[in-house]
């Protein structure tokens, strides 16, 4: 900062002083003063020859002392926007002021008023909790005399008090996130900016993070801007800014959003039909905007000009009940995005297939084919359990990553492993796939132990790893070619499978694009396509939806449902609790152990029983089970 700039800054402040009173009066009349003001903010990035417009003229104001949620699908420009707000990026055009200060002209004074927690908060993992706090206290210039008190307050808030000597790298995902927040808050900032603070965090820590933020806003009058991929969190914000492809699609209190869908939301139940089945049928119905499994029924959102007709939507189901329910933010969000997508499709080339409605995987081994194959195995397979795990252990040093885990998965089932980051899901997976030897216990996949058995058994499984292990510098087509040859596909069959993948996963347009530079949703689709090249009977999906926005997640689950209908056995891990509803059965894992096992319904019942109150969704069930476990110890 040059001295002349700071001079002009103080001068302008002084000039404003006389009419500050006026302004305050005005403020009272008009409501609150704005914390953040964006006016026509544009930003584009150069990626080789391609120019990517991340923000296309964004303007909005947020009020002081409020929580503003920044919501939008993957690649909407949320992170770019936040980075611009804290002066980490320069906008190409437009103006931004944070707490009345111009970010472009005076980033330093903005930075001393703002606390910013990036998506991956840069904790120094080889420093202890206390040393991380000390560093940020030094950097933020918190006077030594105030530190003791502030530390106690922060440690109390985050419940990290007993871990101050522990290295940050040894904390669980949720604890890391809380420590990151504590470091950001070390000198109580006026304005707090949080970029997806709750991604990958277990429900308990998530709830704690939210209660910390809410308390700060209430008690200290802090202003908060946060982005999130969890739509239920949007409802906890005072106001929501919806961002899509660099443009603001909506701005207002979350209730205003959901109000627009008043009368369009329903709850559907039908006797003798799986929720998953109901959901996938509804998704293809006319005038249906959205359908998701929720608790023991299916949430249905209809377009405003359509009434749900049970006969039409679910012709072969019995006792179809459709009840009107109050709408929620998510309903509006999906309907806005759908409308946006349709608009794009109308503008662009008319697309043949609806991307959000995956057809049946015709080319995939059909039910008949699959059955035939299975009947051949059945004598050896016994009761048809495809995956059997008994007393599985895995130790790293003296630390149990997986402890005494037992479950089995039947053919054609979707089985979920649910838990926060670090619960032991990935370790279990790696053992099942034969990538990691167990320390104890037995396991078999399709009747054999993949670790000792030959490639033959491996040819029957498909594996999609957490980070979508694709070759980023290869194009989509090259990746498909590579994986198909890795699975020994040749000639005509190989060509057919590649064509199938390109069509089925809407990848044809991007066939020549570098896979590393595509949005996450595309990468996920490509990774799934690669895992399916050889028509596996068992599919392992490790955190397939991590970091992917709600729309892409819906699409993804539709595909998984279709696969399951075709007879494929699916084992999936996720930390999104609501995704549990798509599973036939699931296991909740916490610190390497299975806490509960059963159908979603059974698990909710279990939780209700243990907590003594009615539990309606998986997240509540998870929290109840954890609390019961912690209380029991």
């Amino acid at each position, binding site marked *: 900062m040059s001295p002349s700039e700071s001079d002009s800054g103080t001068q302008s402040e002084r000039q404003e002083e006389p009419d500050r009173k006026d302004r305050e009066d005005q403020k009272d009349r008009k409501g609150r003063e704005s914390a953040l003001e964006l006016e026509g903010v544009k930003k584009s990035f150069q990626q080789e020859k391609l120019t990517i417009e991340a923000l296309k003229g964004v303007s909005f104001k947020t009020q002081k002392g409020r929580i503003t949620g920044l919501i939008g699908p993957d690649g909407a420009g949320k992170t770019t926007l936040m980075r611009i707000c804290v002066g*980490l*990026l320069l906008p190409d055009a437009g103006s931004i002021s944070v707490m009345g200060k111009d970010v472009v002209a005076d*980033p330093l004074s903005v930075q001393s008023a703002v606390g910013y927690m990036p998506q991956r908060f*840069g904790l*120094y993992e080889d420093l202890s909790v206390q040393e991380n706090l000390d*560093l940020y*206290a030094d950097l933020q*210039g918190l006077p030594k005399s105030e530190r003791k008190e502030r530390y106690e307050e922060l440690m109390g808030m985050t419940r990290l008090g007993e871990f101050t000597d522990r290295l940050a790298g040894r904390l669980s995902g949720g604890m890391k996130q809380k420590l990151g927040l504590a470091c950001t808050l070390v000198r109580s900032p006026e304005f707090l900016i949080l970029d997806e603070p709750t991604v990958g965090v277990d429900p308990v820590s998530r709830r704690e993070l939210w209660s910390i933020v809410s308390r700060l806003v209430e008690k200290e009058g802090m202003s908060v801007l946060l982005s999130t991929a969890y739509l239920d969190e949007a409802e906890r914000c005072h106001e929501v800014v919806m961002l899509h492809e660099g443009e603001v699609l909506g701005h207002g209190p979350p209730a205003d959003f959901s109000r627009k869908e008043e009368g369009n939301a329903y709850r559907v139940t039908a006797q003798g039909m799986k929720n998953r089945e109901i959901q996938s049928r509804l998704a293809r119905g006319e005038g249906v905007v959205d359908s998701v499994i929720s608790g023991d029924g299916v949430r249905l959102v209809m377009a405003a000009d359509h009434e749900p007709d049970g006969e039409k939507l679910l012709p072969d189901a019995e006792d179809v009940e459709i009840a009107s329910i109050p709408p929620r933010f998510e309903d509006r969000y999906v309907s806005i995005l759908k409308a946006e997508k349709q608009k794009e499709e109308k503008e662009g080339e008319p697309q043949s297939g609806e991307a959000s409605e995956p057809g049946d995987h015709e080319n995939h081994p059909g039910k008949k084919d699959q059955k035939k194959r299975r009947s051949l195995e059945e004598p050896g397979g016994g009761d048809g359990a495809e995956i059997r795990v008994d007393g599985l252990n895995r130790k790293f040093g003296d630390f149990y990553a997986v402890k005494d885990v037992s479950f089995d998965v039947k053919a054609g089932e979707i089985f979920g492993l649910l838990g926060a980051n670090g619960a032991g899901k990935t370790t279990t997976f790696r053992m099942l796939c034969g990538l990691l030897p167990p320390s104890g216990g037995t396991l078999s996949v399709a009747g054999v132990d993949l670790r000792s058995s030959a490639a033959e058994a491996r040819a029957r499984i498909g594996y999609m790893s957490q980070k979508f292990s694709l070759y980023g510098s290869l194009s989509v087509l090259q990746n498909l070619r590579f994986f198909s040859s890795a699975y020994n596909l040749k000639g005509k069959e190989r060509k057919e499978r590649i064509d199938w993948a390109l069509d089925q996963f809407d990848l044809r347009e991007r066939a020549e694009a570098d896979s590393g530079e595509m949005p996450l949703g595309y990468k996920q689709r490509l990774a799934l396509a690669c895992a399916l090249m050889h028509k596996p009977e068992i599919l392992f999906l490790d955190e397939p939806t991590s970091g992917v926005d709600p729309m892409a997640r819906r699409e993804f689950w539709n595909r998984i449902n279709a696969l399951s209908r075709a007879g494929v056995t699916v084992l999936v891990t996720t930390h999104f609790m609501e995704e549990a509803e798509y599973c036939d059965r699931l296991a909740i894992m916490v610190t390497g152990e299975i806490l509960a096992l059963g159908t979603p319904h059974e698990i909710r019942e279990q939780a209700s029983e243990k907590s003594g109150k009615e539990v309606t969704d998986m997240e509540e069930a998870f929290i109840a089970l954890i609390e019961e476990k912690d209380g029991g110890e």
Partner: protein
Amino acid sequence: MAENKNKEKNDKEKKKQENKARLGGMTRLWGLVRKEFFQIMRDPSSIMIAFLMPVFLLLLFGYGVSLDAEDVPVAIVTEGTGNEIQRFTAAFDQSRYFEPTYYWNMKEAVDALMDHRVDGIIRIREDFSRDLVRGGGAPIQVILNGVDANTARLVSGYVEGIWAGWLEDRARMQGTDLALPVELHHRIWYNSEVRSRNFLVPGLIAVIMTLIGALLTAMVMAREWERGTMESLLVTPVRIREVIIGKLIPYFVMGMGGMALSVAMAVWLFHVPLRGSLWLLILTSALFLLVALGMGLLISTAARNQFVAGQIAIIVTYLPAFLLSGFLFDIGSMPEVVQWITYIVGARYFVAILQSLFLAGNIPSVVLFNSAALMLMAALFLGLSRLKTRKRLD
């Protein structure tokens, strides 16, 4: 009047703020430095680069690599007999430079050369004695394996030395003086024993400090980007100069530590004389370290992941320091174009200073010129990295 007062008040406030800012700056800087030291202590890889690598390199170059040719295996093919021949070959037996093996025919000797059992062949023909008596020149054939040019040159020189000694002896025995019009007296200055260790080890200090200063610094900066800690750091009120100085101080200390270790090993383990002033050595090392740190920081502005940063650092700092600094290969005998390139290799100046401080003593002209060059480079690199490092992600 009122304006003046206002201004005064303003000035006072500004000063107060500046004072506060300076204090805040010190706190921030201290916080960063302390953090860096914690990280160094807990991360074995940086300690390895800073202290284990120097020890390893010094041992390797001190004991393993020797540019001296001693006990060179040679084949001596004597096709005849006679006193003259015996006396000639005895000179080889006695020389500490050679370890002769005797063969009776040429074919075996050539096989030995092919198999790398010997590095050269000295062939004395059957008619050597006769020719000698008859006068008019008695040829001795010397065949050297020229693949290792360095050894070949040395061996050729030694053979000539032996030959000259033998001639002298022979003349004395015959009672005549070998009347050569010109007499050659060798005296080797600064390194009278011609131990390659004596110039390799001081030069190594430059390589080691390049390693710590540039490679380590570039990698730890890249690590901050890679792990996302930089993004969190940049949005605090920290100034860029504080980030830079906060990295300079710890790695400066580490580099000087590596230097001290190398000097101690050089003097006490390898018995390399230190003829110049220790203070001058410390001072010039500090100067060179700033150049290396500047290079490291500059690399980190371009490379934001550890792998790339490490590769760049090795290619643009470590390898040149190894090959083009004159530590291993004499700059004077490089092609002219390459000689020009060596002027932008900071290690070149430091190697010159080191070799003269260790072997010759304080030579003002050498130290002054090279220090001035180092100073210029340090200012350039540090200035550039200050300009290039921004408090932004793009």
